[in-house]
């Protein structure tokens, strides 16, 4: 377990930028800013023009920490209090869940909730609950 500082201002500013990106993607490309959907469309391309904008968005995302490095002089913190086998298991489970659930934190939690979509509200409440239960079980029942 790693202690982290409460950062309301940075987190709010980050959230505002995430929201701005979602609004801009809808205003220009007419698309939902969902990491799952954008990634899935890269893995299973329908045509070149659809594939290329998705790749451009992901390249932009990957440039985010580099821009932060250029502005502040350091990369954003990525602290992983999880073993490599658990990262593999967790990543695989996330991949299965977001495919059947048709979305993740960005697609359902931000874009869908902002449209008051009943499916997204139900999905977000469900994954927030099961994430909290999983963290509780791992940290306080199993004692990881």
């Amino acid at each position, binding site marked *: 377990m790693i202690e982290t500082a409460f950062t309301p201002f940075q987190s709010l500013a980050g959230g505002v930028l995430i929201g701005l990106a979602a609004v801009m993607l809808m205003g220009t490309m007419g698309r939902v800013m969902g990491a799952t959907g954008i990634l899935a469309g890269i893995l299973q391309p329908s045509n070149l*023009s659809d594939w290329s904008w998705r790749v451009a968005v992901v390249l932009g995302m990957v440039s985010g920490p580099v821009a932060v490095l250029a502005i502040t002089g350091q990369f954003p913190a990525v602290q992983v209090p999880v073993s490599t086998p658990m990262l593999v298991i967790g990543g695989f489970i996330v991949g299965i869940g977001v495919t059947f659930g048709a979305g993740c934190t960005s697609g359902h939690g931000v874009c869908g909730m902002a449209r008051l979509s009943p499916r997204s509200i139900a999905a977000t409440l469900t994954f927030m609950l099961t994430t909290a239960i999983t963290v509780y079980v791992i*940290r306080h029942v199993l004692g990881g």
Partner: protein
Amino acid sequence: MRLFVSYLIGLVFGIGISISGMANPAKVLNFFDIAGQWDPSLAFVMGGALIVTFVGYRFVLKRSGPALASQFQLPTRRDLDLPLIGGAAVFGVGWGIAGFCPGGALPALGTANPDVFVFVAALVAGIIAAKTLRAALAGRASPTITPTL
């Protein structure tokens, strides 16, 4: 033009994820650890993103269409079904184990942290496995009966 704009939008998203703490599994897991090292920061991420998107979508979706594409592509389904709820529940278990969600992990690749590549490789494998499984299920049992909640 479409590619340049898409890149810039991804960049804004990636900077937002970076400074919000969503790319940091320690912070994400502590948000959910209410009984332990609780760090409520991520509520501010969600709150900020939701308010901006809620207000911004009102203006954008009033227009006749997006600037660089022919039409808005919005999900239209409103029913709740088992794949949606079950998938979301499974996603939460994985998120709770690893601390990365897809939107947090993709920008985090830019830090070149090897753990992020491990997670994203497993995420991609999971997406491909689930798509293969879903295609196999659809092929075997057509017409499909979708259980609705």
